C-alpha cells in the first residue's frame, strides 16, 4: 500500500500529487464498503481519534466521526469555544493535554487560521485540519476532487468556476491549490468585495461576473454566502447577488453540456443555487457528502498506516 509523504494534513501544500491519488484511490474502495449492509472494518481497532471541534460544526464533525467508527477506531468528540481567552488554555497546552492522552490522530476544527499548524508543531499524533478560520479545509477539497473525478473523469485541463465569498472561504483556500495540483484550471468568481487581496498567489484566475466565463466551465462550485457580517454587507442585497452570481437553469444550460454543480453545504436555496438546479441531476451535492465519509476514512487509514488493506477491497 502507499503511505503518504506527510504526517499531518494542515494545508493542501502538505500533500504531493501522488498523495492525492493515493487518497482518492483508497477512498474508492472505502466507498464500496459504505454501500455494504455491514459497513464496519476492523482496520483501526485500538487506535484513538479525537475530533477537536473548537467551532460549531455538525456536518463535518459527523462525517469524521462516522469515518473513524467505520474503521473501528475509538472516536471521541471534544467541543469547545475557539479562543484561548475563553477556554483559558493556550494551543500549546491543548496539544500537551491531548498528547498526554496518547491519542493517535487529532482532527482540528478551529475558528482561527493557523491553529492546527501550531497544534501539530507541539504534538506527536497526526493532525488533520478540519477547517481553520479563513485559511484551509483540505479534507473538503479532497472529497470535492473525489466527487469531481467520479463525474467528469480526469480533471487535467478541466475548468472549475468557484463562485462566491472567496475572501472568507477556507473551502476555496484549499480547493484552488488542490485543483492546480491535479492539473485543472480554477477560476474564482465573485464581486471584488468578496475577493482576497491576491487570488493569483493561490493559483486562480479571477472573474468578476459569472456570465463572462460560464460557457467555459466544466464544473460550477458555489460557496455559501454568510448572511450576517460584522463589517457590513459586501454586496447590496441577496436578490442582486442571486441575479449576478446565482446558479440557475439559464446558466446551467450555458455551461459545458456534461457540467456539474457543486456546493459544500449547507445551501441557501435561491441565493447561491436555485432550487431547480439544486434538485437537478447535474447537482452532485449529496455525492459530496457521501464522498466525505470515504475520503476521511482514506485519510485516517493512510495516516495511521492501517493494516489489512484487503479488507477494504
Amino acid at each position, binding site marked *: 500500500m502507499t503511505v503518504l509523504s506527510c504526517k499531518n494534513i494542515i494545508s493542501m501544500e502538505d500533500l504531493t500529487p501522488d498523495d492525492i491519488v493515493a487518497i482518492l484511490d483508497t477512498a474508492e474502495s472505502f466507498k464500496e464498503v459504505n454501500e455494504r449492509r455491514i459497513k464496519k472494518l476492523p482496520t483501526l481497532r485500538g487506535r484513538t481519534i479525537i475530533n477537536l471541534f473548537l467551532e460549531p460544526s455538525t456536518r463535518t464533525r459527523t462525517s469524521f466521526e462516522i469515518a473513524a467508527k467505520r474503521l473501528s477506531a475509538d472516536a471521541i468528540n471534544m467541543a469547545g469555544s475557539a479562543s484561548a481567552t475563553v477556554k483559558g488554555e493556550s494551543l500549546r497546552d491543548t496539544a500537551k493535554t491531548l498528547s498526554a492522552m496518547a491519542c493517535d490522530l487529532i482532527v482540528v476544527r478551529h475558528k482561527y*487560521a493557523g491553529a492546527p499548524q501550531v497544534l501539530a508543531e507541539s504534538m506527536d499524533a497526526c493532525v488533520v485540519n478540519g477547517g481553520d478560520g479563513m485559511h484551509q479545509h483540505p479534507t473538503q477539497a479532497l472529497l470535492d476532487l473525489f466527487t469531481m473525478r467520479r463525474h467528469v473523469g480526469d480533471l487535467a485541463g478541466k475548468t472549475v468556476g468557484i463562485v462566491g465569498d472567496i475572501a472568507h472561504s477556507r473551502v476555496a*483556500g484549499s480547493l484552488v491549490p488542490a485543483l492546480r495540483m491535479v492539473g485543472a484550471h480554477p477560476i474564482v468568481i465573485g464581486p471584488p468585495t468578496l475577493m482576497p*487581496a491576491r487570488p493569483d498567489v493561490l493559483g486562480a484566475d479571477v472573474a468578476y461576473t459569472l456570465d463572462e466565463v460560464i460557457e467555459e466551465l466544466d464544473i460550477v462550485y458555489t460557496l455559501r454566502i454568510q448572511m450576517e457580517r460584522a463589517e457590513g454587507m459586501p454586496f447590496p442585497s441577496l436578490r442582486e447577488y442571486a441575479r449576478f452570481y446565482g446558479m440557475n437553469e439559464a446558466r446551467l444550460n450555458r455551461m459545458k453540456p456534461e457540467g456539474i454543480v457543486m456546493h459544500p453545504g449547507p445551501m441557501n436555496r435561491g441565493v447561491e443555487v436555485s432550487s431547480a438546479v439544486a434538485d437537478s441531476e447535474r447537482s452532485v451535492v449529496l455525492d459530496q457528502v457521501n464522498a466525505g465519509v470515504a475520503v476521511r476514512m482514506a485519510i485516517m487509514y493512510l495516516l495511521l498506516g492501517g493494516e489489512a488493506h484487503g479488507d477494504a477491497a
Partner: protein
Amino acid sequence: MVTLLRGGRLVDPAVDLDRVADLLIRDGVIAEVGEGLEAPAGVLIVECAEKVVLPGLVDAHTHLREPGREDEETVESGTRAAAHGGFTAVCAMPNTDPICDTGSKVRFLVERASERGIVRVHPIGSLTSGQRGEVIAEIGDMIAEGAVGFSDDGRGVQDAGMMRRVMDYAKAFGTTVISHCEDEALVGSGVVNEGAVSTRLGMAGWPAAAEEIQVARDIRLAELTGCRLHLAHLSTAGSVAHVRDAKARGVGITAEVTPHHLFLDEDALLSYDTNLKMNPPLRTAEDRAALLEGLVDGTIDCIATDHAPHAPHEKEMEFELAPFGTTGIETALSLVVTELVGTGTFEWSDVARVMAHGPRRSLGLEAVTLAEGSVADITVVDPEARVEVVPGWFESRSRNSAFLGRKLLGKASEVLVGGAFAVRNGKVVD
C-alpha cells in the same frame, strides 16, 4: 568622578568629528577631547581601541508597561534593557494602564525613573484623554511635569477634526505631536499586511492605504496648524513618498522607522509565529526597500524600536487573537551594525544621525554631542562583539522578539548616562 575613554574612534557628524582620540569626562560633562590626553590622578581609564564612540543613543518609541503590566516590563527592567541595547534614553509611550494622560501620571513616571531607571526616561503623554480620541488631554499640565511629546500611540486619532483641534492646541506649547497612523475603518480586523501573505494565510489584511491616508492627512494638518509632527513607525513605500514630498515642500515634520520594518518583511510570516505580529504589520520586500532608501537619504529621521513587551501566555494565543508587538530595544543597535554598517550601507556617522541626533531632533530633546561641554551621554560600540539572540540574553522581562535565533555582530560595550556607567564591559551595571 573622572573617566577617560582612551583611543576610541570618536564619530559625531554634528560636530564634524571622525578620528581616533581620547575623551575625558568630568562631573558628567565632556571636559576634553584630544589625542594623547594626560590621565589625571584617580581617573578611571576605559580602553576603547577598535571601538566606536558615539553620542548616546535615544529610543524615541518605547513601551515600558509600568504602571499596569509590570509582569511584562517595568521602568527598571525596561531601562536596563535599553542600556543593554546601547541606549542612554528612552521615550516612554503613554498607553499604560492607566493611560498616561494627566500631569500626575507623568510625575509618577518621572519619579519612578529617577528611583529605578538606569537611563533617562522622557515621558510621552496621551494626546486625548484616555486615548479615546474625544477630548484633548491636559497637555500643558503634562509638559509642566516633564512630558516631551504627545501621542495616542497604539491607535490613530480617527477623527480628522479632533486631530486638527489637538494639533492646534499643542502648537501653543511648541511641543511635538506623534502620530500613529491607522485608519481603523480600513484596517477592520486586519492582522497582517493585506496582499499575498494575508491571502495565503487566510487572515484579514491591514492595507498599506490605511496607514498612508492618515500620514497624508496628518501632514496636511501639520501644514494647516503649524504644529510640529512626528510620524511613528512608517511601514510602507507610500508613507515614505508622502514624507519625502512634504519635506520637499518645507513642512516641519519628522519620521521614524522600526528595526523590524527595516530588516523583516511579510514573507517571514508563513510560520504563524506571533512574535512577528505587530502594528503596523510587516510589509512587502518593496516597502522594506523604500524604508531603507528613505532612511539613507534622510527622509526618515530616526530608527525607533517600538519595543513592545508582551507576556508569553498572551503571545501563545492564536495568531488572530495574540497582541500586536515585538520587543526590540536590545537588538536594534546590533541589527543596524550587522545589517547596515556591516554591509557598507551605513557609515558610523549615519548610525549617530539616525539613532542619536535624529530622535532628539524629532522630539525636541536637548542636543548631545561629543564636543567639550556636552553632557556625557555616550554609547561605546564594540563592532566585533558577537550577539546571539536567545531568550536568556535579554534584560527585558519579556522575550517576544521577532529576531530570536539571530546571530549578530556589534554591541554596546559601554553606556554612559551623565558620565555614569549604565553598561560596562558589555554588562548592565547593577
